[in-house]
């Protein structure tokens, strides 16, 4: 690896992923700073989710560099190791443990020793319960704490998954379409929550809902056909002719 040691938290350079010759990511480059929030927009199939797959070790890029904290080569690590480094992810379709209670979902996500022996012998200290209570409060699921996660509404599941992300205490959060299937009020609340989280952590949010992206008020990157089309403030990006042509104008 001859990649430069960068001061940025996440550094993607020239990343290419092809599926049977089709390039889902095409020489993508992107840098995210510590405690930065970035919104990613772009048409369906632009490669937004694939980019998250590369960062979290689900997909191996055919080419390119992916560095975390300047020194960890993400392309050489698997999902578990990357999660341990401090990268958490919310999926496009909410994935929670449906048979577990809301509380247990958070318990499993809580930053703790992850080995089989540690979990087999773990006693739950009061401090842990306090953390869970605080998280439940934050994602407004205190009333639902004993319900099975599978019984929650779509929006509640999205929030539970964000709560699980917070429980992991990651340095970087990847959040794929958090507002999908939410009411306007829920969407606005989610934007508030994310802004609050971004005060102490780096966050990458993928979203199609422009009102939501505007609410976030952060730097925007527009992807198209696997590479960056435009980057800057939302106003600047939405004024870009190419962006209007391939995405916003439709």
């Amino acid at each position: 690896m001859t990649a430069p040691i960068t001061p940025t938290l996440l550094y993607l350079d020239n990343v290419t992923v092809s599926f049977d010759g089709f390039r889902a990511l095409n020489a993508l480059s992107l840098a995210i700073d510590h405690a930065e929030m970035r919104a990613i927009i772009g048409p369906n199939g632009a490669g937004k989710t694939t980019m998250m797959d590369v960062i979290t070790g689900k997909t191996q890029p055919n080419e390119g560099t992916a560095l975390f904290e300047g020194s960890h080569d993400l392309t050489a690590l698997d999902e578990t190791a990357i999660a341990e480094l401090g990268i958490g992810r919310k999926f496009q379709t909410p994935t929670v443990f449906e048979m577990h209670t809301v509380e247990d979902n958070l318990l499993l996500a809580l930053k703790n020793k992850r080995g089989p022996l540690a979990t087999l012998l773990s006693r739950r200290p009061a401090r842990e319960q306090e953390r869970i209570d605080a998280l439940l409060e934050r994602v407004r699921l205190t009333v639902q704490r004993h319900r099975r996660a599978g019984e929650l509404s779509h929006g509640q599941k999205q929030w539970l998954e964000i709560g699980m992300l917070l429980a992991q205490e990651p340095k970087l959060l990847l959040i794929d379409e958090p507002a999908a299937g939410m009411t306007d009020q829920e969407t606005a609340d989610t934007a508030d929550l994310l802004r609050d989280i971004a005060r102490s952590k780096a966050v990458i949010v993928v979203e199609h809902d422009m009102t939501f992206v505007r609410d976030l008020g952060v730097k925007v990157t527009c992807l198209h056909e696997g590479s960056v089309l435009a980057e800057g403030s939302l106003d600047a990006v939405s004024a870009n002719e190419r962006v209007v042509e391939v995405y916003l104008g439709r």
Partner: protein
Amino acid sequence: MRTQSLFDRQTTVVLSLLAAAAILVPAMNGLALPGSALHLSDHLVPLLGKYVCFALLALSVDLIWGFCGILSLGHGAFFALGGYAMGMYLMRQIGARGVYSDPVLPDFMVFLNWKELPWFWYGFDWLPFAALMVLLVPGTLAFVFGWFAFRSRVTGVYFSIITQAMTFALMLAFFRNDMGLGGNNGLTDFKEILGFPVQAGSTRIALFVLSVLALAGGYLLCRWVVGSTFGKVLVAVRDAESRTRFLGYRVEHYKLAVFTLSAMLAGVAGALYVPQVGIINPSEFAPANSIEVVIWVAVGGRGTLAGAILGALLVNAGKTWFTAALPEFWLFALGGLFVFVTLFMPRGILGAANDLWERSSQKLRARRSPQPVTQAAE
């Protein structure tokens, strides 16, 4: 919350029933006079003991299949290996009382013209060593097998198929005389265990009670495992494996740990089974045996532990009755039962009973309280 309290009640019920069996069976066999309605005849004691061993085997399968989604179709192999370890101990106890009266070599070795005991038979004349092997041999095989399978992320039906291949390969290996384990006759003609004659009524009672204790211990161990945070991770792996990885759990380590533990439980079941049936041979490795265990668990109710015990007892009692009354129909009955349960009781007998219980208690609550039902539900 409701499920939690249900499990506690379930534990009480299971342990009480097992305690009752451990007391009643010896009493009905030893104290009740022959001819009285309460008397349990001698040949029924090892038969019941056999069922109890099968229940422990079913429990071990439920631990991995019900709670971690690992469908092993080769657990009969671990059961048989535990059985062989015990069988080797029992062979060594025969001493010079074999047909050929060789003081060291078991009959089949004399028959094959072998001059000395193979190295892997050393130590088996001592029960503690044999008992250790009952755990270590199946445990090691499961560990090595699981290490390769889980690391390469072999899951689902592919995993099931290679477990079938494993038990089939072992069956072929054990059929060979050069294996040094009795070839297709296996190990049999046992005389004594710890100095007590294996055929004696009192020994059989003792073995039965031991099997019940092993089942109770196995049940409590499984209950403890699935109730811990470790157990919650297992269920997470079962329901959303890749999500669990993204949370930072090493899924393959969890699978390996629970698979190895389960194989050891199966080994114990096999070890208790062999002195009660008096023989262990390669047919115990038959792929169909392992499939039958999965049917017991499915019938009783997967992922409940108690259901595995119930299923094993019911199906095997049914098998005994059928093979005596209508032998040619047993396989059809078993197949039919499996189809019926899959179609109409996907959560098994215990799952269906739980649903019924919850529905009726909900109705009861709704009737008692004047509030509308929607409010009473949560």
